[in-house]
C-alpha cells in the first residue's frame, strides 16, 4: 500500500522540498510479510460457516434459507411478520381475506424468548457457610420475673413464728 500526497496549489516552496518528499511519500505498510488473500478468505468463510452451523443447531433454524430446521427441535418457529403473498393484494370492498391475516402472526404468548442459560459456575458457587451457628438469647435459658426486688424474705428465710414442738410436748 502506498500513500500519495497531492497538492492542488503548486507552490514554489513546496516544490523545492520535493527531492526529499519523494522518500517519505512511499510508506511501507506491510508489517507482517506478504498477505495470502486466498488463505484469509478461506479462513474467514470457514469461521463464518462454523458460527452459522453452531447457531443453526442451537436455535433450530436455518439462517441461510430462513426456515426452521426440524419440526421437533428445541424451538418452534413462527413468522413474526406476515408472509408475503406472491400475488399482491388488491383492495376489494367485500374481501375479508385482506384483514384476516392474524394466523400469519404468532400470538404474543407464543413468541419464545430464549432464557439465558445458567452458567455452570453459578451452580457450583454456593458460598461455604463458615458461621452456621446461631446466637441464642439469655432469655432462652432464664425466665423473666417482673419487679423482683431483693426482699427481706430472701434474707431471712426463717418464718417469724416457729412452731415450738418441744413446748407442745411439755404442756
Amino acid at each position, binding site marked *: 500500500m502506498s500513500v500519495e500526497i497531492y497538492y492542488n496549489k503548486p507552490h514554489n516552496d513546496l516544490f523545492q522540498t520535493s527531492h526529499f518528499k519523494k522518500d517519505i511519500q512511499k510508506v511501507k505498510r506491510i508489517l507482517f510479510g506478504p498477505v495470502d488473500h486466498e488463505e484469509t478468505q478461506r479462513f474467514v468463510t470457514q469461521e463464518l460457516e462454523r458460527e452459522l452451523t453452531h447457531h443453526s443447531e442451537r436455535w433450530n433454524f436455518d439462517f441461510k434459507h430462513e426456515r426452521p430446521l426440524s419440526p421437533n427441535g428445541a424451538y418452534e418457529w413462527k413468522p413474526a411478520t406476515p408472509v408475503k403473498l406472491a400475488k399482491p393484494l388488491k383492495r376489494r370492498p367485500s374481501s375479508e381475506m385482506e384483514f384476516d391475516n392474524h394466523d400469519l402472526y404468532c400470538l404474543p404468548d407464543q413468541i419464545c424468548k430464549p432464557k439465558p442459560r445458567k452458567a455452570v459456575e453459578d451452580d457450583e458457587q454456593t458460598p461455604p457457610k463458615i458461621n452456621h451457628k446461631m446466637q441464642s438469647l439469655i432469655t432462652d435459658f432464664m425466665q423473666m420475673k417482673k419487679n423482683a*426486688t431483693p426482699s427481706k424474705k430472701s434474707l431471712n428465710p426463717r418464718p417469724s413464728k416457729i412452731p415450738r414442738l418441744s413446748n407442745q410436748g411439755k404442756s
Partner: protein
Amino acid sequence: MFEARLVSCAVFKKVLEAIKELLNEASFDCSESGIQLQAMDISHVSLVSLMLKSNGFDKYRCDRNITMGMNLASMSKIFKCANNDDTVTIKAQDDADIVTFMFESKKQEKISDYEMKLMNLDQEHLGIPETDFSCVIKMPSAEFARICRDLSQFGESLVISCTKEGVRFSTNGDIGNANIKIAQTSNFDKEEESVTIDLQEPVTLTFACQYLNHFTKATPLSPQVQLSMSDNVPLVVEYVIPDLGHIRYYLAPKIEEDEN
C-alpha cells in the same frame, strides 16, 4: 435513707468500667445485704449480675430497700471527676429522685458533691437457675483477657472446649484458624497465676467474641477469673471483687441452627 461509703473509690470506678460497655443504664437495688445489679445487654444475649456486699463497705446504711435507676455513662462521668484514692459516699433519700455522690480527698481538704437524676427503669429481672456445671475453669484474668482479645481478631466466634487435658480456645475466620491451649498448672505457690480445671465431663461451646471482650473489662477487679460451663447453658464468667462481692457475666452460647 441510703448511705454507702467506700474509702477508695477506685473499686467503684473499676466496677463502672466493667459494666458500662454492656449496659447503657441499670437499676441498682439497694437493700440491707448490699447493692445488687442485674441487667441484660440491649441485645439480650448476655446478663450482668453485680453484688456488692454491705459488709464490704466502710459504712453502710439502708433503712428501706430502694432501687436506683442510673445512666451509666452519666455515672461514669461523675466518677471521672474523682481521684482513685478519694473516699466516695453514695447517698439517697427514701423515694428520692436524685442520688448524691460525695468525694472527699484523702486529707479532707477537698470535698465535691455530685447530684445525679435517677431514672425510672423497667425492671426485668431474670431468675438464674442453679446449675451444676460440667466444668469450672479458674485462670488468671489477664490471661483470659489476652486470649479473648487475640482470638477475636480472627473470627467473631470463640469455641471453648474443655477436656481433661486442658482448655482449648479456638476461632475460625477468613484468614484461617487460631488455637490456644491451656493446661492445668501444678504450681501452687502463686494461686493467682495458676490454672485449675474442675471437670465432670468434657464440654465444647461456642460464644460471640464481642461479648467476651466486654466481660474482660472487669479484669482490673480481680487477678483470677472463673469460667463455668455446661452443655447448652449460658457461660458464667465470674470475677470476685476482693472483700466486696463479685461480678458475674452470663453469656448465651451460639447453637446449631437446626436445633432452634
